[in-house]
């Protein structure tokens, strides 16, 4: 048995497609039973992992880090990447923002205090010489749940938002916004992690073969998705519809997908960089967390080697 968690969300493409077309079942064979659980948010998934209710999960980098730190490195390991990109800074069209300096005195939202986007936003502002209110400056950073961001865009109470997909696209389409900045532009090679695959340490030790098989299927599926994008998007939407009762607008899905990429590369550096700036901004506690052990890419590299692909560090 292997129990896997994921979100019914487009940033979890492998999970969505895999569930929809039974990819993992096929690849892992009839002896392995797969139990999927869908979560609405990272903390619940980590909670479930902590409680040993699941063995494996597709989650964002932020919950992975907190989960790792919180358990003093005991509970989990990142074993592969899943998706990259898909985050943008959207400004409201009539907010008058044209260039970074225009952010003075504006209200900018991030989804949650101290999460990846929040940190990226703060770091970006800092890099452009803008100070947030809590540091004595005049840019107001407001952690607000994504749906509320849209409402506030519409009621003109918010000037900009650092938002993940599909929200960035919806802010553009429905909230009268424009992409001011695609976060990919800030990173080397235009890639940074948005979703990765974590495994409970215990499970990893007890069933390395299962995990390895999973990673193999995961890598193959990633390649398949990239080769069959329209089909994949259809499957993703179908699966989202099935789980939440509501499909995404296909146009939104298309736009959003264009701003992200599906990859098995965990993009280790981007996570560590992000964690570093998080610490510098005062999150993640008083001591610099030691994230050295968060990755366990041995299995991924073995798989890649088998396939004759380049190993990752």
């Amino acid at each position, binding site marked *: 048995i292997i129990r896997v968690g994921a979100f019914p969300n487009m940033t979890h493409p492998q999970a969505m497609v895999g569930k929809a077309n039974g990819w993992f079942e096929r690849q892992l064979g009839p002896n392995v039973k797969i139990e999927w659980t869908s979560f*609405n948010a990272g903390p*619940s998934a980590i909670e*479930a992992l902590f409680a040993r209710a699941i063995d494996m999960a597709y989650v964002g980098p932020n919950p992975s880090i907190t989960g790792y730190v919180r358990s003093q490195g005991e509970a989990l390991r990142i074993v592969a990447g899943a998706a990259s990109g898909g985050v943008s800074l959207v400004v409201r069209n009539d907010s008058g923002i044209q260039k970074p300096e225009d952010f003075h005195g504006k209200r900018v939202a991030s989804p949650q205090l101290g999460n990846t986007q929040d940190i990226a936003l703060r770091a970006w502002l800092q890099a452009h010489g803008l100070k947030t209110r809590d540091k004595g400056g005049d840019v107001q950073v407001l952690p607000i749940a994504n*749906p509320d961001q849209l409402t506030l865009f519409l*009621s003109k109470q918010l000037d900009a938002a650092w938002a993940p997909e599909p929200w960035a696209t919806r802010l553009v389409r429905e909230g009268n916004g424009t992409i001011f900045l695609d976060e990919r532009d800030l990173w080397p090679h235009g890639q940074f992690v948005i979703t990765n695959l974590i495994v409970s340490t215990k499970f990893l030790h007890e069933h390395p073969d299962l995990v390895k098989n999973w990673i193999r299927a995961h890598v193959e599926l990633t390649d398949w998705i990239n080769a069959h994008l329209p089909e994949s998007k259809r499957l993703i939407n179908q699966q989202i519809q099935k789980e939440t009762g509501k499909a995404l607008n296909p146009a939104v899905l298309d736009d959003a997908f264009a701003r992200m990429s599906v990859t098995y590369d965990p993009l280790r550096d981007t996570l560590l960089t992000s964690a570093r700036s998080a610490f510098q901004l005062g999150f993640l506690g008083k001591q610099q967390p030691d994230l050295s052990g968060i990755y366990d890419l041995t299995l991924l590299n073995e798989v890649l080697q088998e396939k004759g692909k380049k190993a990752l560090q």
Partner: protein
Amino acid sequence: MKSVKKVGKHVIFYAALLGIWALLAKLKIWPSYVFPAPLGVLQSLRDGFADHSFWIGIGVSMKRIIVGYALSIVLGMVLGLGVASNKFLEETMGGLLVSLQSLPSICWLPLAVLWFGLTEKAILFVVVMGSLLSITIAMEDGRTQMPKIYRMAGRNLGASGLKLFWYVLLPASLPFILSGLKQGWAFAWRSLISGEMIFVSLGLGQLLMTGRDLNDMSLVIAVMILIVVIGFIVDGLIFRTLEKRLQYKWGLTSAT
């Protein structure tokens, strides 16, 4: 005759509500994404029922709420009995009931997952934790605020211990318990919605979450309407019936 008139009143009332709503939506004070018109919500309702997601949602959630609520009542009463019968428990637990009941369901989620894993039981646990104490509070209030004469008469006629509780204290505090059952029902629903956030599980809570996550206000309102309608039916079938019976027995309504 009378019931025709009553139905008429209801029709007028809901028509008026709908009218105001439609008017507000027409005025376009707020964009329709945030303040959808009745038609949009109707569309959502139709869609939801058409693709079965509402039927499934209602079925799944109703099952959970019924089981969870029933458990709450039983456990709430058992706890109430415990508090009532044990002076030590009364003095210590008694003062904690309200404050424990104030804890939001979100506090119980981690424990639910920890103890029950990702199962229906975890959701039930959240529902039970959310409404159980509400029943106990009502029982306590009933027990301490009912006329003293009933307890005295019961004891005088030889009731004591469990018998006194079951045959005297409980029925004598029924008006309070009934009120508590209503409040408990509301707590149970709210907790269920929280509980269904543990993992994606098809219930109405999930639909509500989806609506909110997608900022799809028509969906949110459609689910709200479902919850209200279910509540209305349950209220009418169960609480009002119980109340009427009680009012008849106790002579709280006019008899002419």
